[in-house]
Each structure stands twice: as C-alpha cells, then as structure tokens.
C-alpha cells in the first residue's frame, strides 16, 4: 500500500550507505574515481572537502522542511512571511537560506499543490535531502503534469472534485516546498509534535499529513 511504504521512509534519520562492491568496479564507478582523484591531484578539490560534502548531504533529512512547516502552523505572521518570501523566513528560524530561491505553496481546503521537475530533477535538497527515485523517474515527470489526479491516486491520495490541483514545474531557478494543511485535532501541540506529522511526501505534495491520533 503506497501510504505504508512512504510512512516507512518518512523517518528522520539518514539512509545507511549501501557499500560499493570493491571487487568489481563498473565503468562509471571507475569514472567517478578518476574524476575525483584527478581533481584532487590538480588541487581543484581536496579529499576532505568531498568527504565533508558527502556527510553534509547525509545529514540533510526532511526534518528541516518539517521544522519550517511546524513553525508556519503555529505562527500565522511567520506563515505570511514564509509565503511571501521563502528564503529570509528560513534564516529566521536558523536554517540555510539555500542556493536557490524558495517558493512555498500552501495547501488549503480549496487547493492542493504538487511539485515536479519535468526537465530534470530539481528539488529543495537543502531542506529535504536527496530526492527519492520516483521523483526523478520518467513516469512521474511525464504524468504528474498531465494527469496529476491519477498519479496522486496511485500514491493513495484521492482528492475531491471541489479541490483544485495545482502542479508546479520547477523549470528554472525556483525551488518549491508544499506547506501541507495542518491536521485537525492538533490544537495546543508543540512544534516538535507537529513536525513529526510532516513527512517528505507531504512537502512534495503526493501525500497529506495523517490525522492526529485522538
């Protein structure tokens, strides 16, 4: 069931690295070694920089995005600032403003937003970590822009006819984050409790946060 699968992957710790098979290198693994070693030999990069960048990316999980959403849910004035200008609002809560302009789009009872990059795989990595394979797949990229409701249904999200679906195609220099609707029954919850309801898939727009347990 699509939802159960995504729940499993919406945890907050990084995925373990799958070890390379050292006994046999593929052509492209060999190419990676060559690019890396030549760049280090030429003094363009250092091995340390590369290692630190790998670690940095490992530590980027959807928790950062969830923190933004939880703050927006609890602070209407912050939410307004976030929707007007994403990057300064990130800095406000101690996050990197990021290398791209961030546009945050709000889900309401009338509008459901979903994000795609049909041309490649643009994604707000500095807030969510690396994108999942399906986001980068030909199938998602060709279909979600053309038949978003069918694709969302495949993810287990069935939207009513009175909800407008808005697809955002990151074709150029913007990056997008969906601000999901706050589930009912969460009045008085702390930001930490709220952030735990915000999964990666809800910020891409292929899922909505599960309702709070009564």
């Amino acid at each position, binding site marked *: 069931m699509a939802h159960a699968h995504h729940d499993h992957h919406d945890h907050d710790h990084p995925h373990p690295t799958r070890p390379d098979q050292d006994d046999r290198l593929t052509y492209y693994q060999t190419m990676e070694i060559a690019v890396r070693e030549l760049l280090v030999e030429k003094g363009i990069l250092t091995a340390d920089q590369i290692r630190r960048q790998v670690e940095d990316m490992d530590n980027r999980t959807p928790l950062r995005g969830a923190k933004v959403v939880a703050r927006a849910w609890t602070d209407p004035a912050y939410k307004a600032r976030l929707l007007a200008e994403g990057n300064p609002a990130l800095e406000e809560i101690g996050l990197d403003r990021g290398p791209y*302009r961030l*546009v945050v789009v709000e889900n309401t009872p009338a509008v459901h937003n979903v994000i795609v990059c*049909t*041309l490649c795989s643009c994604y707000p990595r500095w807030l969510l970590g690396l994108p999942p394979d399906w986001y980068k797949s030909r199938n998602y990229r060709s279909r979600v*822009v*053309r*038949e*978003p*409701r*069918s694709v969302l249904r495949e993810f287990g999200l069935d939207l009513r*006819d009175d*909800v*407008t*679906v*808005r*697809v*955002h*195609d*990151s*074709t*150029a*220099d*913007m990056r997008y984050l969906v601000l999901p609707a706050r589930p009912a029954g969460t009045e008085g919850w702390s930001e930490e409790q709220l952030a735990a309801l915000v999964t990666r898939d809800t910020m891409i727009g292929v899922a909505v946060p599960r309702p709070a347990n009564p």
Partner: protein
Amino acid sequence: MSTAAISPRYCPGERVKVRAAYPPGHVRTPFYIRGHSGVVERLCGNYPNPEELAYARPGLPAQPLYRVRFLQRDVWPDYAGQPADSVDVEIYQHWLEPA
C-alpha cells in the same frame, strides 16, 4: 554588447503566450507548454540565461523570469480533472509574447 539588466515587460495578472519555437540546444521551456497561453502569477527576478550557461558562457544580461499559470484544460485536449486545475511553469521573458 550591453550587459545592462533587462527590464521586465509583463506584470502579474497579465495574459502571455509562450512562443512555439523548437531550437536545438539546452532550453528550459518545456515542450508541452510551447504555443500555450496563461497568466503571469509573479515575476521571480532576473537570472542569467541557462541556454548560454549550458555552454559555459555568462548568460548576460540576466533575463526576467516569470511564473506563469496555465489552465490544464487549455494545455491538454483530453484533460480529465477539474476546470480550475492549473500548472505553474517558470518561463524566461524571451520565450513570452503578449497573448
């Protein structure tokens, strides 16, 4: 060649049409949207032209970039969703003309 910034030509709310041109090279205007008309949702700012950056050239002067909202039923002849469903696409000014 002048590298002075290009002034934005379109305002939010204005109707614009995406040129139906098919050059070779690296283009960030998706095929599915070429020839279609929509409404400017916002001006995103000025950015160097990716068509030039793709060839290690500076891409200056920076081009105004817009988010343009298209109605899905205008873009896809067999669109099966709701009439207000839309797709928002970032498009550079040099790909737009008044609708």
